[in-house]
């Protein structure tokens, strides 16, 4: 099992030994970095392509239709067909747009999506860079997508994309705060910001001591995942690119390869958000029997499945509901969750711990739900109509 577990790491070491025969030692460092970068640069777009296929098949099956199955055996070549279509489509730039920013926006949106891969621990010692501020790096880099999306919407000089841009900034900023706070319990429990340490901290009970099995971990997992869904503008929160209301939101004026870049950024952030949620709360690559990277892939793709399952089921939130949920429900609940994590670590005895934390969490979420009663105008009384 160890052999299978470390298969990628050993293969990289083998390549390095091979290269060290004729390269000076400095060059070895560069070669090893290049191998990791190459792996990520290949894995990123590849997983994006097959996530689009996976999503179309899944949402199709939910709606009693089969989904793409004509290109290739089970429609497996459909992403390649989409890619070619995107490449050959004419790239229209609106006359009023300011060219530089219009061209720059898709590039700037893909950079953070790819940067985040460097921090994700794919398997035991299979992380590109083990930054000791890994998680913070992820949050900082995903904050840059707000600027990129806004550049795209402002530069295309189009009412709909400007509307989309305004909604995106409102949504991303207001969901970033609860996201950071939802990640804090995992940091408290593992005592370090580095993603690898967080996963190692969930290693007990031969790989099953995940944070999600503790009450605060479960709440933190739900919060982080919900904010993650909002961060990449996915279904219950896809107000910025709502096809029915504002044509296509911020990427209305993009076609051809630029639109493909927007699409790639969105799907890569779907993957990285699920990967991070799995790392933080579902014990990243920790698991009893299978090799570490297999566990990581199973958990991540399970979370991606749930995100796409949302897309097949849930209707879109109104803007005020979306903002209300972020500020009036998620934020207070994550703060209380941090309090409960602290309590969890400073009280001894399982019964007291469980009772206390579950009690606080249930009461607080019930009170918050009470406070957030949606405003229902009272029914109008028609004196003369009856």
């Amino acid at each position, binding site marked *: 099992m160890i052999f299978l577990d470390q298969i990628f790491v050993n293969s990289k070491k083998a390549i390095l030994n091979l290269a060290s025969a004729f390269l000076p030692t400095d060059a070895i460092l*560069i070669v090893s970095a290049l191998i990791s970068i190459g792996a990520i640069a290949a894995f990123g777009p590849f997983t994006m392509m097959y996530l689009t296929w996976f999503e179309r098949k899944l949402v199709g099956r939910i709606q009693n239709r089969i989904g793409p199955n004509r290109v290739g055996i089970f429609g497996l070549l459909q992403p390649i067909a989409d890619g070619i279509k995107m490449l050959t489509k004419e790239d229209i730039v609106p006359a009023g747009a*300011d060219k*530089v920013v219009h061209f720059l926006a898709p590039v700037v949106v893909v950079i953070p999506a790819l940067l985040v891969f460097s921090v994700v621990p794919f398997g035991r010692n299979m992380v590109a860079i083990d930054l*000791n501020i890994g998680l913070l790096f992820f*949050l*900082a*880099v995903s904050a840059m997508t707000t600027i990129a999306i806004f550049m795209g919407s402002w530069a295309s000089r189009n009412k709909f994309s400007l509307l989309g841009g305004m909604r995106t*900034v409102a949504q991303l*900023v207001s969901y970033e705060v609860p996201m950071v706070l939802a990640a804090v319990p995992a940091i408290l429990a593992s005592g370090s910001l580095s993603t690898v340490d967080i996963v190692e901290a969930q290693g007990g009970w031969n790989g099953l001591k995940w944070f999600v099995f503790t009450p605060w971990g479960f709440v933190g997992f739900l919060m982080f995942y919900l904010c993650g869904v909002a961060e990449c503008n996915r279904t219950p929160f896809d107000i910025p690119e709502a096809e029915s209301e504002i044509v296509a939101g911020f990427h209305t004026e993009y076609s051809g390869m630029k639109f493909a870049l927007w699409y790639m950024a969105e799907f890569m952030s779907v993957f990285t958000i699920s990967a991070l949620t799995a790392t933080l709360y579902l014990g990243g690559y920790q698991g009893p029997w299978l090799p570490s990277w297999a566990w990581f892939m199973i958990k991540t793709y399970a979370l991606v499945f749930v995100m796409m399952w949302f897309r097949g089921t849930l209707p879109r939130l109104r803007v005020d509901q979306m903002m209300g949920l972020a500020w009036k429900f998620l934020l207070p609940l994550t703060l209380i969750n941090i309090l409960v994590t602290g309590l969890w670590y400073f009280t001894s005895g399982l019964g007291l711990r469980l009772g206390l934390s579950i009690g606080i969490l249930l009461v607080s979420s019930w009170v918050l739900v009470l406070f957030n009663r949606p405003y229902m105008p009272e029914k109008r009384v028609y004196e003369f109509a009856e």
Partner: protein
Amino acid sequence: MLPILAKLFIYGVLFLSLVAALGVVLLPNIFHAALCLVGTLLGIAALYLALQAEFIAVVQVLLYVGAVMTLVIFAIMLTHRIGDMTIPQTNKQSLPACLALFAFVVLIGGLLLKTDWSILVGTGGSVASVNPPVDTFMLGKALLGEYVFPFEVVSVILIAGLIGAIVVARKD
């Protein structure tokens, strides 16, 4: 061979940041100026990474690029009128400002290059010896240990600023 590459990279980043800073000041289109500022901030964050101050680099990207620049862009969007392109963006006092600042830079630059920084530390060597890099653990302990009072005062200022901004910008 690696340190030379790293030096080249850092000097390149510094030069690009200066060019972006000039862009912030000189570009007529205010939105492009804001984007150049984002470029400068990222360049400075790269400089912090070179100085092994990772936490500050990440906080800078998270706070400045994530929050402050979003705010600035919102303000630009709400106050931008299409007619703004034609109005000259700089007032008449650019020449005196240039001269004064040039004198300032020459003065301070000369001062910087002349002083021998090793005096500060009292040890020999041309370059001041180096402190160990500060990792987030030490920073956290300091923020809540030795500097807990300024930490609380800053949070009070933040709340005051928040409420002040809401009251000022509210449309009553």
